[in-house]
């Protein structure tokens, strides 16, 4: 448990968009996918995923449809809309800029200033 990091506020939406961009998934699938692509380092409260999903659907970034899962269970599948794809691209760029800036700030050595 110690190697898991707390999620920064606002990043859950980004992770959901990223996970769904890899192909249509149901809620539990998205959770697993986030675990996989983050190397199981991010701690996500399972239930907290759903309000985020509903919010993204309402914003028009995701669309949902009922289908059958690989376990042969009825589940709601999510996929990206055009707006969702655009948002993912923008958010990714801005996140990368921020991460690079933070990383550079933290890696500076005293003598280099």
């Amino acid at each position, binding site marked *: 448990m110690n190697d898991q990091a707390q999620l920064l506020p606002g990043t859950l939406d980004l992770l959901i968009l990223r996970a769904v961009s890899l192909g249509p998934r*149901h*809620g*539990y*699938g998205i*959770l697993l996918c986030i675990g996989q692509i983050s190397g199981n380092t991010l701690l996500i*409260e*399972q*239930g*907290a995923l*759903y*309000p*985020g999903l*509903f*919010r993204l*659907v*309402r914003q028009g970034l995701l669309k949902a449809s009922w289908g059958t*899962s690989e*376990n042969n*269970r*009825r*589940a*709601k599948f999510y996929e990206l809309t055009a707006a969702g794809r655009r948002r993912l691209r923008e958010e990714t760029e801005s996140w990368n800029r921020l991460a690079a800036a933070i990383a550079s700030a933290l890696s500076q050595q005293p003598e280099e200033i």
Partner: protein
Amino acid sequence: MKLVDWLRFRFATLFQRSRMNVEIEEELRAHIQHRADDLERSGLGRAEAERRARIEFGGQEKFKEECREAAGGTFVETLIQDVRFSFRVLRKSPGFAIVAVLTLALAIGANAVVFAVLNALILHPQYVPRAESLYGIEHGSDKDAVESYPDYLDLRDHNRSFQGLAAYSIAQAGLETGESPSRIWVEEVSGNYFDVLGIQPYVGRFFHGADELGANSAPYVVLTYAYWHSHFQDDRGVAGRIVQVNKHPFTIVGVAPPEFRGTLMFFNPDFFMPIVDQEQVDGQNLLNTRGRRWIFMVMGHLKPEVTPAQAIADLNSIGSYLEKTYPQDDGQMTFALARPGLLGDYLGLPVRAFMTGLVLLAGLILLAACANLGSLFAARAADRSREVALRLALGSSGTRILRQLFTEAVMISLMGGAVGLAGSVVLLRGLSVWQPLPQFPINVPVNPDANVYGLALLLSLASGFLFGTVPMRQILRTDPYAVIKWGSSARVGRRITARDLLLGVQIAICAVLVTSSMVAVRGLARSLHSNFGFEPQNAMLVDTDLSMAGYRDDGVPAMQRRMIDAVETIPGVKSVGLVGQYPPTALVWNISIVFTDETADLRPSNAAASPVIYSISPEYFHAASTALLAGRDLTWHDDKKGPRVAVINQEFARKIFGSVANAMGRYYKRRDGTRIQVVGVVEDGKYTPNLAEDPQQAMFLPILQSPSSETWMVVRSNLDPQQLTTAIKGKLRDLDAGLPSFIQTWNKQMDTALFAPRVATVSLGVLGMMGAMLSITGIFGMAAYTVSKRLRELGIRMALGAQRKEVLQAALGRPLKLLALGSVAGLLLGILAARVLAFIVYQATPRDPLVLAGVLIAMLLLGLLATWIPAQRALAIDPATLLREE
């Protein structure tokens, strides 16, 4: 999003709510099942796997709620929640809720009533097709619409601007439909009246211009719907029936539609008859006298291509021709156009000015109510700052809390609006059937309609939002940590704020109104016992018109003598007099211009005076208790054969002859050139219903020399009015069973004269109540706010040994100082305003210790009432509890 879309979305989400709940539940269940599948694969039993999955998932209900909120389907649910919560909160402080609802009910009710009256009198179009092009003609010089019949004919026949011109006048007549005669009100209208207005008959037909073939040539009547309904029981076969109008046979030809009650708004006639038959109702032929202006109004539709300015120019050219041709009869003849409903500007100007004032006043009352409720709400918000802080700290959002407070404000305003509207509907219903003067068919239908309901709803919502926003800043600034740690901030501004000023002004206005209404009440009480130049106490008035029973010419005075002789024989009757016009202070009075004896050119502009004119029998002064100052009373020998004489009043004598002594035996001239000798002078009196008027001139002519079929008998007696009425009725029936009469005490008749001051007193009283209500909420709000803001400070003071008096001073000093200042300012202004009031209420004076004491007591009571609850609260402070908890 457009409003419609938004609403549809909200409703859709409301109705899809259960479906959405099912979906959310299903989705979450699917998640847990998938997780359990995975756990099962890792070797757990199914039951254990599902249990683990549920635990890992966390609080399902909480997430479901969050999902619903995220999906945007919670507006209506939140609203319902807020409403329920607000109800609970308001139930906990019923005093606050009642004060707030009542204040708003008064303010919104007042606005609804004023708007309904405005709607009925000014905004509501008259029931006449194409009302927008219908204009009445009034005189440009004196804002008066009366016209003589020959002048009307000239205007009708020579104008090029109107599609047609109709005329009407109002008269009373005796109508016999088989049973005993009854007195009814009739509108004498020109033959083309219905055609010019474009009204279609409801039953039968109307009469037309072609039916007029000279005086008394068109014996037709048209009933109003109301009269037909109440007296002919909706009998459609009524057309063709013969009725007797003043003993002349007339044929009912039709019934007017229900919506049409004549064009004069307040007046409901019983039927319409051709104006050419007026002699049969009025007793004398007025169709050829150009000098007698008795037609109420001439009106018609403008031709489509003619502008009002062109029409006025056209009428004025006819006017200048009339001026030149008939200098004796027609003075200045310039014209203006006006709406006919309120007799043009004659009633229209005062009514419009009055309504504008009322609308402004009602608006101000509502604004003041909102401001006061705003400060009450702010006080409550301050009290609840800990609750709010707790909710904020527990994760509620600021908007959510504001929304709840707003819901509370709007709920209060809606309740206030509902109560106010209910009250105003009751009031308006009453007003609609109210006949202020029992003898006249005068009434204003102001039934509330959809407009009124809409306005009340709109005002309620607007005022709710208005006072709901006042405490908003306070809430938004709340820092939950600071409030919970230190309690609410105890800063109290020392400067004079806009709120102080507003409250001060309200208190001052309230004091003005209280002062004025007390002045009015006292004045009214005094004017009941003042000297009117006659004594209404112990006098009975018998109102008859001999022409209604068919008496003509010499038959009239003979019958009048017989009536006097008969009534005089009733035991207990002291004296009986006759007057041939409405007696003094009735709604109607006649004025006739007179000239000095030296004047040769008798044109109106040379007139020396315009006294009120009465034709009286010898005993009249005695019966009316009017004091004769000089000379002699009139006698039965002052008849047609004798020299023309008159008794005049003091004011007349002073005006024309300089003094009473000077007037005796002197002559003056009437309009037709008759020389009249003054044989006596009586005291001044009140003649018009305006008791506050300056002394007017009056002349009393012998009834034998200027006969009148209209007859008012004044019977002075100490007998019980009921008994006397029966006795008089019996005597008159013995003389002529077909003579309709109306008997009442002179005191009762005085109601007409006291109508305006009574209305003024009642309205001032109502306004004073509203002002008091507003002041109470205002002071209450401010005091409550101060107390709750300074609760901690007061507690510390008490702990340090402050006395009750000092605590009260600290808590209530400011509102009480405002009350004192406002009351004094208001009292002074009220004393000034009483001078204006004296124009309406006879003998209104503020120099009256009772009034001053009354105002002081009223304002003191008001202050006590308003500060009672906050004072109790300040005194109930327990320093120990307070310091422990706050």
